[in-house]
């Protein structure tokens, strides 16, 4: 019964979305306030009904209602409660329901918090948002219904993919979707602006917080996914340039570009057309990501469903929204008024360079991701494009961008002084040279690129705070004065500093963990030791241990350094009975920002020896601390007074006649 209520709630949400897609839009064309206000109620109604559907599915999972097919296929009564709940979106249908839920959350948020928006813009935005909702609710109801019953109901379910039975599933998909789907708001704003044929600085001020919020969730979502893969997949990799990862990385790159170009639009009314295009492209890449992951054209741990009908459905959604919005862009973009002038060397110029490099980098990732698919479709040849391709294409572009990052905030709007900016960065350059030299000396014949990358990372980390140092007159006025100035700085400046610093930390972590990791593999018996990175890993005992729905083969180690036992570490192979599947539970020992990664391989039945892999990963934690700092920077920016929901009214009054 409850499953039917969930199903019915989805239908009602679809009906409301259809109303919201037509009535407010029509109202906006006729300037009818009553019709436009309909959107508020329908947006909140959609949230209520989709939440109801989501709650119904969650209930089916928690109570292990095996009369629902989705629960049978992805759950088991012995599964711990937390994984029963997260298992709701650990499958194709449930994850699409989560997609829809987040979409309507954002829609309702615009309805609730967008009180200061001009009425017509708000009505248009919510109408566009409803079109997206219609597409995905239809997709759920027609091709991915999570509430299908099975009769007779089996007594037991088939369990969730063991790789997904991890706390990562509770965090990674919701964060990622908050990012993906959050960009739909920027998209809706862009399409609304094109429909209105008008766009101004106030528009950018409304779009920026939504974009910033989506971006910070996506940043955290990608980082969380990377950390999850690192500890769960058992080989300690943090990024594989897997098409599915690229699918989330491309909207992130485009979204980062959008954040920066919206800045130019907000302050200087320049780059209007470009900002609109970026908003469309960012969400298009989110949709493309959904298509790649959900259609089964790629085989990966994320591809739950291999079903051509579903793939075709998403492809149609993709074509309609991308094609439609780009066609609208082609029709209307020419009519948008050109904005302020700026010299090539200026804050605007730096942000344009940022955009050029980011979008080009996005394009190289896109080519690498789609080329194998295109080639196979065209010639039937099977190739794989892996890390070497991305290192050779994305790498140089990213490094070039990183070199430019510290300069950006130091350049004045309209016309900047590169020499003056460079003078403010001498200490960052000094730190970079020093770090590069130290790295070169310490690594002794390691990869040549690594000290170079370390230098760039330090330049970015230290240089990120150059603007703060300059504006607070650090060490040039009394400390009290500096503090007062620091408190008076716009929060966006602090946000940018932290975000850029996080970028540098990530590069440092990636470089160190890639270039200087040390790996040892051997067969070990109890009592034997393995030397890795100046430490001695002694296998003390092995044994079996039972969990709720799995059995662990556990190996315990003592880690010794210069003869002294430092700590104990445990690594295991986890066998899940229902799916007859094994996962690796890696043992991690943290030393500062570095980690020792211990994982187990196969067990030799004859003599009890087990294959052990120990890898020393220097500074590896920085890879994920960096994005957390970036997201923190985004959060601070979001709290900036100038971005508080709703722009100052005088600005709007002044800008309106400029049509």
């Amino acid at each position, binding site marked *: 019964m409850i499953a039917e209520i969930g199903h019915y709630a989805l239908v009602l949400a679809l009906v409301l979305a259809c109303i919201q897609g037509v009535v407010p839009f029509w109202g906006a064309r006729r300037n009818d306030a009553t019709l436009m206000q309909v959107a508020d109620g329908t947006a909140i109604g959609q949230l209520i009904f989709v939440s109801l559907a989501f709650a119904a599915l969650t209930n089916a999972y928690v109570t292990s209602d095996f009369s629902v097919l989705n629960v049978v296929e992805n759950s088991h009564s012995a599964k711990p409660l937390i994984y029963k709940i997260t298992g709701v979106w650990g499958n194709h249908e449930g994850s699409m329901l989560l997609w829809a839920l987040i979409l309507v959350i954002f829609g309702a948020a615009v309805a609730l918090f967008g009180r200061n928006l001009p009425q017509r813009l708000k009505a248009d935005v919510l109408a566009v948002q409803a079109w997206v909702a219609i597409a995905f609710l239809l997709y759920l109801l027609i091709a991915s219904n999570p509430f299908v019953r099975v009769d007779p109901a089996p007594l037991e379910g088939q369990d969730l993919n063991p790789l997904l039975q991890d706390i990562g599933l509770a965090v990674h998909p919701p964060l990622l979707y908050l990012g993906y789907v959050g960009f739909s708001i920027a998209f809706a704003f862009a399409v609304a602006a094109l429909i209105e044929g008008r766009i101004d600085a106030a528009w950018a001020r409304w779009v920026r917080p939504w974009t910033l919020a989506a971006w910070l969730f996506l940043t955290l979502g990608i980082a969380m996914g990377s950390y999850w893969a690192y500890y769960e997949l058992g080989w300690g990799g943090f990024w594989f340039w897997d098409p599915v990862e690229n699918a989330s990385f491309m909207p992130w790159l485009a979204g980062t570009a959008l954040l920066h170009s919206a800045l130019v639009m907000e302050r200087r009314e320049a780059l209007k057309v470009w900002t609109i295009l970026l908003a469309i492209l960012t969400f298009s890449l989110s949709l493309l990501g959904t298509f790649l992951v959900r259609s089964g054209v790629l085989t990966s741990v994320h591809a739950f469903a*291999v079903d051509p009908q579903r793939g075709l459905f998403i492809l149609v959604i993709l074509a309609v929204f991308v094609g439609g919005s780009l066609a609208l862009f082609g029709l209307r973009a020419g009519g948008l008024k050109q904005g302020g002038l700026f010299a090539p060397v200026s804050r605007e110029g730096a942000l*344009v*360079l940022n955009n050029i490099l980011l979008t080009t980098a996005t394009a190289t990732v896109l080519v690498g991701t789609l080329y*194998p698919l295109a080639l196979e479709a065209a010639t039937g040849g099977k190739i794989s*494009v892996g890390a070497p391709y991305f290192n050779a294409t994305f790498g140089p572009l990213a490094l070039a961008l990183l070199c430019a990052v510290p300069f950006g905030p130091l350049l004045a709007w309209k016309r900047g002084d590169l020499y003056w900016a460079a003078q403010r960065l001498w200490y960052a350059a000094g730190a970079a040279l020093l770090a590069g030299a130290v790295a070169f000396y310490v690594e002794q014949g390691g990869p040549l690129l690594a000290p170079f990358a370390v230098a760039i990372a330090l330049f970015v980390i230290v240089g990120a705070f150059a603007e703060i140092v300059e504006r607070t007159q650090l060490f040039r006025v009394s400390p009290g004065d500096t503090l007062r100035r620091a408190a008076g700085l716009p929060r966006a400046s602090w946000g940018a500093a932290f975000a850029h610093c996080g970028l540098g930390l990530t590069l440092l972590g990636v470089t160190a963990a890639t270039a200087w990791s040390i790996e040892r593999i*051997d067969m070990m018996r109890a009592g034997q030791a393995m030397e890795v990175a100046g430490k001695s890993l002694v296998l003390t005992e092995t044994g079996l241990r039972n969990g709720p729905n799995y059995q662990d083969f556990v190996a315990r180690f003592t880690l010794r350094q210069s003869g002294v036992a430092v700590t104990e570490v445990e690594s295991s192979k986890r066998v899940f009975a229902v799916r007859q599947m094994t996962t690796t539970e890696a043992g991690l020992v943290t030393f500062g920002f570095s980690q020792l990664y211990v994982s187990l*391989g196969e067990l030799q039945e004859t003599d009890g020896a087990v294959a052990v892999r120990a890898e020393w990963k220097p500074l590896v934690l920085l890879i994920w601390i960096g994005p957390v700092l970036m997201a923190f920077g985004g959060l601070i920016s979001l709290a900036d007074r100038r971005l508080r929901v709703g722009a100052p009214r005088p600005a709007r009054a002044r800008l309106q006649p400029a049509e």
Partner: protein
Amino acid sequence: MTRKGRRLVLIGVAGVVLSAAAALVLTALNDTIVFFNGPTEIVQNPPEPGKRLRLGGLVEPGSVNRQGPDVRFEVTDGNNKIIVAYAGLLPDLFREGQGVVAEGSLATDGTFRADHVLAKHDENYMPKEVADTLKQQGHWKSDVR
């Protein structure tokens, strides 16, 4: 600088970045892409030693043999076999008689030296390339997928 001049600078910078990126992409696509082959293709048409490629097929039952850090196993498509040598831990889903993809290159002695070994992710999933190869060789079991 005039508006036109500024625009030219902008277009110039964009042009330089784009052409640099295009050059990078084209050379990288030439140098770094890896072709996929089954054992029969390799036996009939041996690639030059050292050329990177992906080898896919089923793990021959009883062929897995580990010595210290090195493991050797055979990949078969039913007609031909290739011996794979790999220094590392086999993935969790690696199993005898199941699909596998090894990435690496052919050594002069005819063994395949792999630096990556990928196994299928769960019972519903087999690397697409392997499934297609098996279909070609007529070893496709409909219950595999």
